[in-house]
């Protein structure tokens, strides 16, 4: 079907079309939406038709493109609004000082910290290097546009199995090794170049990510309370000052592209949706913007994100109840011949929009010039709630902001959902005889999800700015093991620290989204507590498949229920969040992946604890929950090819009690090393502690999970557990304190020698030297990635 007859070119010196939506029937409206790349549904197209019928004129192509951007799934959370409202919104909101492009929370009496976590999944699946780099570029702008200095990045990544057979790879799917390398290269080259340390993250491999890798990116910033700036104009007359990179054809329809499934043709059709990152334009933009803010020259600030100029101009005015008049002629272009609608919706990178009082414009332009950063006034705020755009003297767009930016309200349009029934899967747990446990531990240590991530971590500069006081790799030099969380000391004159971690267990999630989400919250808290930080806030990046499928929608509901209940019980606010849907291709859908980024506060960084064993003769304790037969989704069952089994449950009141117990023991300096027990159970936990400290231990697990079979004791992933090395001279004090705090514990052994020896009922079940443990654990990813 041709819709050419509906496109009416206007007689002008540039390309501008009127679109005859009035005479278009329903199928032609749908055809228009897809041909113009709007990704709008029929109902939405009809609503647009009605609007312009009332205005008694046809819409321009610029107007339709602007609506496509503003109304897309990505911008207004069509599908996820109801479950989010039901479970997530409103938890501990009092703690949040501001929540716009990023969340802002009090750090101390003079400072806020600012956090953001978002996804850059689809672009990274098409073009991993550029997709990941611009993901970093986007998230750092969100943090800068609240007026804060970025101080750290966090990068959780999810890929298909690295050893996936190349000849079985479906057409149009890129090999996980290629994607993994490209993404890490992109983060490294962008993050390192702009001089912000990448201090935490997660790397996970699972077949569900084969067709859709996930690249989540988080950023933390710090700002003085009086430097907080909002994403809103202050008054009519405020000048829109465009700052930063030029506008080009890259990143057109990025938003609408993120709101559809990937196909084997996405490579060809969507390449233009991936932006091009330029860290060396970005770095001075950050400097200039923050300097302008510090000098008090800003009325408002917003970064160019999804939807480009269209969204940024509209939202700055809409948030303040005003309107905008914009002249596209002043927008700097990367190349000649861009059509006005392309300029209006392009998502070219490295751009910020400053709201400036007219009297301050010269000074703002001067500061930008010193940094060789392009800056130009392109319009101003007006009193009427209307956005008008002009190009070469022609008005090319005029819409009410309420209609354009307010967007349709979807609360009445409920997507159908079917709740998952994990009980069936969990009950279906086949029994098997116990394998040789030493061999099982070796295999688990060398599996890609457990093995050392040094290959990734060392390629990121995790120390630039000099504030990373607890590093992501911990232990003796060149023997380091994984830490639970990294800690930043953001202020020169304060010992206070910010701890950061990122977690989710996709195998738990695939079986049981509700308990999987609770487990993610539990693990996030454990990781923060293990370094000595009290959990303070969290961010959620909800990565799911196609929400039009009721099963996926059901997963979203159950995930939100789990996260919301846990957060409410723990009184942890969601500082910021992001929803990424349609992470589904013709190959597979991702397992539900609510990536959590946890922020903890350390009162004095000098009390922080790392995971590596410190001193021979210290006592080793298992603190917290009873070890249960909860191996559904565990590394051990994966190794043994067991599908069913109970996903670990979480008891939030026990978690709270244990958080208090462990933190007070760390504050009193009783604990020399602490590691949370998660993937691979206590066997992997102890191995990592021994590897990092280059110090072994004699461990007796007879009392652990009393009646359990030895393999389940070793590898169960029950929640709310930590292994702690307690200073020998503090043993009695430690036990008294934990009893007082009602936190359960078992003494399981002593640090000793250069081997990890584990016995159960007087039988030695593991006896491995540290070099042999390290040998299993250290090389998997290096050997695969080179």
């Amino acid at each position, binding site marked *: 079907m041709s819709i050419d007859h509906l496109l009416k070119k206007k007689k002008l010196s540039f390309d501008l079309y009127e679109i005859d939506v009035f005479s278009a029937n329903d199928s032609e409206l749908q055809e228009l939406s897809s041909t113009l790349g709007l990704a709008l549904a029929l109902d939405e197209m009809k609503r647009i038709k009605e609007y312009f019928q009332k205005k008694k004129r046809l819409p321009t192509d610029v107007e339709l493109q602007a609506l496509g951007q503003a109304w897309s799934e990505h911008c207004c959370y069509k599908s996820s609004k109801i479950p989010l409202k039901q479970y997530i919104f409103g938890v501990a909101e009092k703690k949040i000082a501001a929540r716009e492009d990023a969340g802002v929370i009090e750090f101390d009496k003079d400072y806020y910290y600012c956090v953001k976590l978002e996804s850059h999944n689809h672009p990274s699946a098409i073009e991993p290097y550029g997709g990941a780099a611009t993901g970093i570029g986007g998230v750092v702008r969100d943090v800068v546009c609240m007026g804060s200095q970025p101080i750290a990045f966090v990068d959780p990544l999810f890929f298909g199995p690295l050893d996936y057979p190349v000849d079985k790879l479906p057409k149009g799917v890129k090999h996980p090794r290629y994607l993994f390398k490209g993404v890490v290269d992109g983060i*490294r080259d962008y993050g*390192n*170049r*702009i*001089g912000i340390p990448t201090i935490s993250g997660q790397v996970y491999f699972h077949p569900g990510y084969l067709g859709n890798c996930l690249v989540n990116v988080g950023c933390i910033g710090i700002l003085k309370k009086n430097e907080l700036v909002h994403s809103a104009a202050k008054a009519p007359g405020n000048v829109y000052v465009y700052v930063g990179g030029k506008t080009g054809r890259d990143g057109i329809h990025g938003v609408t592209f993120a709101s559809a499934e990937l196909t084997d043709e996405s490579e060809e059709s969507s390449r233009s949706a991936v932006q091009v990152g330029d*860290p*060396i*334009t970005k*770095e*001075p933009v950050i400097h200039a913007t923050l300097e302008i803010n510090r000098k008090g020259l800003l009325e408002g600030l917003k970064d160019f994100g999804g939807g480009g100029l269209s969204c940024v101009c509209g939202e700055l005015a809409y948030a303040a109840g005003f309107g905008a008049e914009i002249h596209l002629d002043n927008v700097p272009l990367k190349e000649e011949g861009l059509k006005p609608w392309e300029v209006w919706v392009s998502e070219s990178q490295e751009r910020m929009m400053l709201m400036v009082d007219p009297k301050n414009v010269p000074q703002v332009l*001067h500061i930008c*010039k*010193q*940094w*060789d950063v392009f800056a130009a006034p392109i319009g101003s705020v007006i009193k009427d709630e209307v956005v008008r755009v002009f190009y070469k003297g022609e008005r090319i767009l005029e819409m009410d902001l309420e209609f354009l930016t307010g967007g349709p309200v979807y609360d009445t349009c409920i997507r159908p959902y079917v709740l998952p029934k994990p009980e069936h899967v969990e009950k279906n747990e086949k029994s098997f005889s116990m394998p040789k446990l030493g061999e099982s531990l070796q295999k688990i240590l060398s599996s890609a999800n457990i093995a050392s991530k040094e290959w990734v*971590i*060392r*390629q*990121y*500069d*995790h*120390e*630039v*700015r*000099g*504030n*990373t*006081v*607890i*590093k992501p*790799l*911990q*232990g*003796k*030099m*060149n023997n*380091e093991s994984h830490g639970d969380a990294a800690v930043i*000391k953001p202020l*020169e004159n304060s010992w206070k620290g910010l701890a950061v971690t990122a977690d989710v267990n996709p195998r738990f999630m695939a079986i049981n989204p509700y308990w999987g989400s609770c487990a993610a919250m539990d693990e996030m808290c454990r990781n923060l507590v293990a370094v000595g930080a009290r959990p303070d806030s969290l961010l959620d990046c909800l990565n799911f498949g196609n929400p039009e499928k009721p099963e996926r929608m059901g997963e979203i509901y159950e995930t939100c229920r789990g996260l919301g209940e846990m957060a409410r019980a723990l009184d942890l606010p969601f500082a910021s969040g992001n929803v990424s849907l349609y992470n589904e291709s013709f190959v597979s859908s991702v397992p539900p992946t609510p990536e959590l980024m946890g922020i903890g506060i350390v009162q004095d*960084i*000098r009390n*922080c*604890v*790392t995971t*590596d064993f*410190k001193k021979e003769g210290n006592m080793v304790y298992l603190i917290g929950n009873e070890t249960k037969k909860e191996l559904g989704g565990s590394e051990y069952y994966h190794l043994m090819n067991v599908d069913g089994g109970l996903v670990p449950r979480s008891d939030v009141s026990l978690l709270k009690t244990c958080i208090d117990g462990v933190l007070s023991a760390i504050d009193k300096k009783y604990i020399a*090393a602490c590691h949370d027990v998660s993937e691979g159970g206590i066997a992997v936990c102890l191995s990592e502690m021994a590897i990092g*400290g280059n110090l072994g231990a004699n461990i007796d697990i007879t009392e652990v999970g009393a009646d359990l079979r030895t393999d389940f004791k070793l590898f169960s992933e029950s929640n709310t557990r930590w292994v702690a090395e307690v200073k020998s001279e503090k043993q009695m004090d430690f036990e008294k304190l934990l009893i007082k705090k009602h936190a359960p514990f078992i003494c399981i052994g002593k640090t000793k020698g250069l081997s990890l020896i584990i016995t159960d009922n007087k039988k030695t079940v593991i006896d491995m030297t540290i070099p042999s443990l390290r040998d299993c654990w250290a090389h998997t990813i290096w050997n695969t990635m080179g």
Partner: protein
Amino acid sequence: MKTKDINVAILRIEGTNCEQESYDAFKRLGANPEFVHLKQLLHIDCDKNEIRDLSQYQCLMVPGGFSAGDYIRAGAIFAARIKSKLQTPLKNFVEQEYPVLGICNGFQVLTELGLLPGIDTIISPIPDACLNINDSNRYECRPTLLKHENKGKCVFTKNLKKNEIRLIPSAHAEGKLMFPLEKQNEYLKKLENNDQIVFRYVDPDGNYAGYPWNPNGSMSNIAGICNHIGNVFGMMPHPERSFYRYQHPDWTQTGLSPSEGDGQAIFTSVVDYISKRF
């Protein structure tokens, strides 16, 4: 002169990264550091009150980062911009024995500028050395141990004992010091004879060891060198990242006493030098 009167120019352009922690290092010692954009020294796009001259400073520091992106050989663009207009003032600055420090990217810049190795000239017209891509062919951020081998020429390590081992972390993709192949041995001998070798990478026992103790494959394990006068100094590892003990990667193993970190001595040495010499 008094410490508080020591003006330190922390030179930056787009892509300079480590300026804040470098600034902090001097500030903590009571000196007077200042961020100076190269354009301020070149008098481009500046208001009157923003114009600066090298002669206003007693120390020049080029910090780490990726100046101008380092999309060609690291440090080359920054060096070319300095050289085009500032060669004479810079030469005078060095001749007057004011100290110049280059860390990481700064070392690369000083090498591209021809200030280092500076065996018998102040500033050579073409670079005499380069910082090549690491043997591992990748960017690596890892702790490194440096043995101080200078016998007393370098003004940045006067407060360090000879053969002392210091933990100063590295983070770079291009840190492998190389000379023109045909002159390699000759240059190395001259550097040793002139007491221009300042730091070498070692393992915890003080032995020269391969990767990862030497993170980049640098010739003769060299981590830092100074010019023949001893006042221009470049090193790949970052002393500003181990200014305090709590910045050390293994402080939870070794404890927090003393509170000074292993890199602090670089900054105290040069501040002491300036206050005595000028």
